């Protein structure tokens, strides 16, 4: 009768001897399926990144719109000359320089304020470029050289604003 009791006692004590950190305590025991897993004292696992956390522009990148509702960047992807078709890329970010939820209703309007006129936009095309916040603008036509302003109006995250980019055409 005593021997089974001793066996039970050994069975009960043995799991208890395996508690504690395997690093510090030198314990190599594997936990049983129902036993809670105790991990080392580290930081909680990071939340997967989503759009709200993704910063698109650094503080020195992009141009803020007139009312501060979004930030945009204009990059020329061809030589910028007069009387020839020119291409560009437009990228938008929300007001806090993160990936915006939606960008629509883009108007790309080159103007020459000192002369009081614009240019022909009949050939101009604006298409999404891979991601929903970047766009290719193709077949921009500057009718003459001089000091121009590109006035871009867009609805970013349901708010409409305008951003201006200066450009000198030879």
């Amino acid at each position, binding site marked *: 009768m005593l021997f089974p009791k001793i066996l039970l006692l050994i069975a009960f004590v043995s799991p208890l001897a395996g508690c504690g950190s395997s690093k510090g305590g030198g314990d190599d025991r594997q936990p049983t399926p129902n036993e809670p897993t105790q991990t080392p004292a580290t930081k909680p696992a990071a939340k997967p990144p989503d759009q709200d956390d993704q910063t698109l522009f650094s503080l020195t990148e992009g141009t803020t719109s007139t009312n501060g509702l979004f930030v945009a960047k204009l990059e020329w992807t061809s030589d910028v000359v007069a009387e020839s078709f020119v291409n560009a890329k437009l990228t938008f970010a929300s007001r806090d320089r993160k990936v915006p939820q939606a960008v629509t209703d883009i108007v790309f309007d080159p103007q020459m304020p000192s002369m009081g006129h614009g240019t022909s936009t009949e050939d101009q095309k604006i298409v999404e470029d891979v991601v929903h916040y970047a766009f290719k603008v193709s077949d921009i036509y500057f009718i003459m*050289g001089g000091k121009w302003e590109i006035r871009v109006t867009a609805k970013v995250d349901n708010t409409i604003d305008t951003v201006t980019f200066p450009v000198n055409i030879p």
Partner: protein
Amino acid sequence: MNYFMIKIVWIIAFVLVSSQIPQPVLACASCGSGGDDPLILYPNESIKDYFGVSQSGRFKNIDPDGSESTAGGPTTKQAMTLATGRSLSPRTFVTFTVPFMKNIRDDNSRSSIGDPSLAGRYSLVLQTLDDPWLPQVQLVYGYKLANARSIHESRDLKTLMDVFGTGFSEIKAGIDIWFGMMRWKPGFSQLFSMPQSRSFDGVNYQPGLIARSTLSLGYNWFETWKMTVGVNREYRRPLRVDGVTQDDSAQLNHSAFVTSDVMVTGVDTVRFSLSRQAALLQNYSTSRSDAISLAYMHSW
């Protein structure tokens, strides 16, 4: 050949020759000017008619910082100008001018009537041979009607071939001083032109006041041959769009010209001119071009 045939030959020659009346200053080379009013009556003339042809080219835009850039638009502009003048009194005359203009680019061309203008002068001081140092002093006034299509109404914004005028009617007034009784003939004039505001597509444009100063020096080589050289300084105040002054829209242009007048008969004069816009000194927000013109004038 009798006198009548000589006149016909001259008229035909002028029609066949393609040359230019010196262009007024343009904001940009392809912006259009509408034409100018070149006819002046001397005190002894009652009626005078003018027929001129001109051609301008080598256009360049001058940027706000003074650098050159591509002009765009037509590469050559031609004009045929008809004008007639009437003396209302020994001190007053009026003229009416209508330009016919042609834009040329590569193999394409388009023509249009320019901006007609009505102008006049009143002599405050008349010259006399008794005192050659007494200058002729005239008040100058005029009105130019915006008739020709401007860049704000262009239906061809890629080539601007349909742009012939500024789009703005102008009222002008000024003074002209001229020493015409000596072999050397210096002159000075100061004109002010005020364009009238106008709206295009719901946007209101108010060009600035224009101040044009001219210094000239003529010389009578012979009784029938006079040459004049001169410089113009034209400054235009900034443009306002919907009440907002546009940056870098003030314009400055210093141009130069040389003119030769030959009296082929007592009542017929042939004039040949060369001019260059933005020829010297400081220029900004304007255009550079070269022009050549030939004109025939007949007084009755």
